[in-house]
């Protein structure tokens, strides 16, 4: 294996949290698919906001309000450029991926009719299942599932057969949070468009690894959370094509989203404000922009190459453990490894690893249908970020071995 040129030692210096200890051991943080850590550059942006220009935006005539508004709108532009949206008002700030999905699902309540069909992939996070089930309950539309195979890949032939003139919406994640599979979203989007269906792609897991180009993808909606990409929690973005965002009714009523209010009638603000009721997470939005700056300075190609190297190494080393089975062995996958040890509950492994200072996720990863597919209660999931090291993979492997020795026999 050729080593990728990547100065991980230098990069780790940007993340103060990586210096801490857990249970007396150096922290080995491998729960990045849940939340990534925050670099000093982003922490500085958060501190700068509260120390120097904290104010409500879009309203005040005073200097602080103007500065905060400028920075917040600059962040929106950074997000637009990063995802290559055609127009800045196609970027809606949300509280995160779940909020973005609910916003779209709610909007489609008025566009769907009884008997319409919506397709969901079999490997979705609950946040990309439940809002659509609720939508179907409200409208009488029918939810159909695109199945997956044993490797954790979508069965594209079945998908093609499920599509028809009745299909109005397709939603799928770009990358599975539980398995790491990178889904063929170009193909999914193109096929859906041929029957006139709109597509929402959940990019929560893809954003830390892949720079998605929403115009090249021709996707209708793309949603992400900042906390997966070195940003803060509680903020994210929804990209929607202008034509769709204009069609959807507002999601929440309140300040900021109106043009004119009387007790007889209210007219709504233009995009993007129509979907941004109330005072937003101003600091979070600005820090989201700072996080994208940080990631882009390192470069997504370099990040992907390095993470792939870590994934290959971890896959090889973990596979050497007798009785260890990896779930999600797609050809095209990102730096996530879901696994179990034969006869051992994932909770027990996670508990021992925690004692060793190693943070992994255990359980069903909010994707119960996947666990039901494999007939398991859950998995242990190690997810790697560009600041993780080969030595940390070694610590994980040694920790799993140790847990296995304690738990088996």
């Amino acid at each position: 294996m050729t080593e990728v040129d990547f100065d991980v030692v230098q990069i780790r210096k940007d993340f103060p949290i990586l210096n801490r200890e857990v249970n007396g051991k150096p922290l080995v943080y491998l729960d990045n698919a849940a939340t990534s850590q925050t670099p000093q550059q982003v922490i500085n942006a958060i501190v700068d906001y509260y120390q120097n220009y904290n104010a409500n935006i879009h309203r005040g005539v005073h200097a602080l309000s103007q500065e905060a508004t400028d920075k917040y709108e600059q962040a929106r532009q950074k997000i637009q450029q990063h995802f290559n949206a055609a127009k800045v008002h196609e970027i809606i700030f949300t509280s995160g991926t779940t909020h973005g999905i609910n916003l779209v699902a709610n909007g489609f309540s008025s566009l769907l009719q009884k008997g319409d069909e919506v397709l969901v992939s079999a490997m979705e996070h609950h946040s990309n299942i439940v809002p659509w089930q609720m939508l179907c309950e409200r409208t009488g539309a029918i939810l159909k599932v695109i199945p997956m195979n044993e490797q954790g890949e979508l069965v594209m032939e079945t998908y093609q057969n499920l599509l028809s003139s009745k299909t109005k919406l397709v939603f799928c994640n770009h990358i599975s949070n539980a398995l790491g599979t990178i889904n063929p979203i170009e193909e999914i989007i193109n096929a859906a468009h041929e029957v006139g269906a709109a597509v929402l792609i959940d990019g929560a897991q893809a954003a830390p690894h892949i720079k998605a180009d929403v115009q090249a993808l021709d996707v209708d909606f793309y949603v992400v959370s900042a906390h997966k990409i070195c940003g803060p929690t509680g903020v994210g973005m929804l990209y929607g094509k202008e034509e769709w965002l204009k069609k959807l009714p507002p999601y929440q009523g309140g300040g900021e989203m109106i043009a004119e209010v009387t007790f007889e009638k209210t007219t709504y603000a233009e995009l993007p404000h129509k979907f941004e009721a109330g005072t937003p997470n101003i600091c979070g939005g600005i820090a989201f922009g700072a996080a994208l700056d940080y990631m882009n300075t390192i470069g997504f190609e370099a990040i992907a190459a390095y993470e792939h190297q870590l994934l290959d190494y971890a896959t090889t080393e973990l596979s050497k453990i007798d009785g260890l089975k990896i779930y999600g062995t797609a050809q095209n996958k990102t730096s996530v490894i879901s696994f179990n040890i034969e006869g051992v509950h994932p909770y027990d492994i996670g508990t021992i690893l925690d004692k060793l200072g190693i943070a992994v996720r255990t359980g069903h990863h909010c994707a119960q249908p996947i666990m039901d597919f494999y007939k398991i209660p859950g998995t242990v999931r190690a997810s790697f970020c560009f600041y993780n090291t080969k030595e940390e993979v070694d610590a994980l492997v040694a920790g799993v071995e140790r847990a296995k020795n304690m738990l088996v026999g």
Partner: protein
Amino acid sequence: MTIQAIQEEIIEEFSMFDDWMQRYEYMIELGKSLPLIDEQYKTDDNIIKGCQSKVWVHAELEDDKLLFTADSDAIITKGIIALLIRVFSNQKPKDIMEADTQFIDEIGLKEHLSPTRANGLVSMIKQMKLYAVAYQTQIK
């Protein structure tokens, strides 16, 4: 033995362990030891679903004392269940209602009773207390 006395006995036992490894090895041994519940009681009615591990609890009254049996699909959870059963089973409902679970903190297993662990243990203790309340009214 009273609930208090059993808890003190467990604290005493755990004080002999030097580090977390020994404590956990003991818990795992406890968990592996015996099936704690009769298979017929591992029903959906008796299940407490944590997000991560499942717990089953069954209660029955014998004379004036409440007997608990329980199980879990995760072994460390099962080990803690074994301790909880040792403390609470074969006790009077009134005593169970009034007892606390401070001993779990003192033996260094506090984190397992944190709601974020989602292992079903917090709900299990709540369920045991609810059984105690229910059977207490029967005794009267």
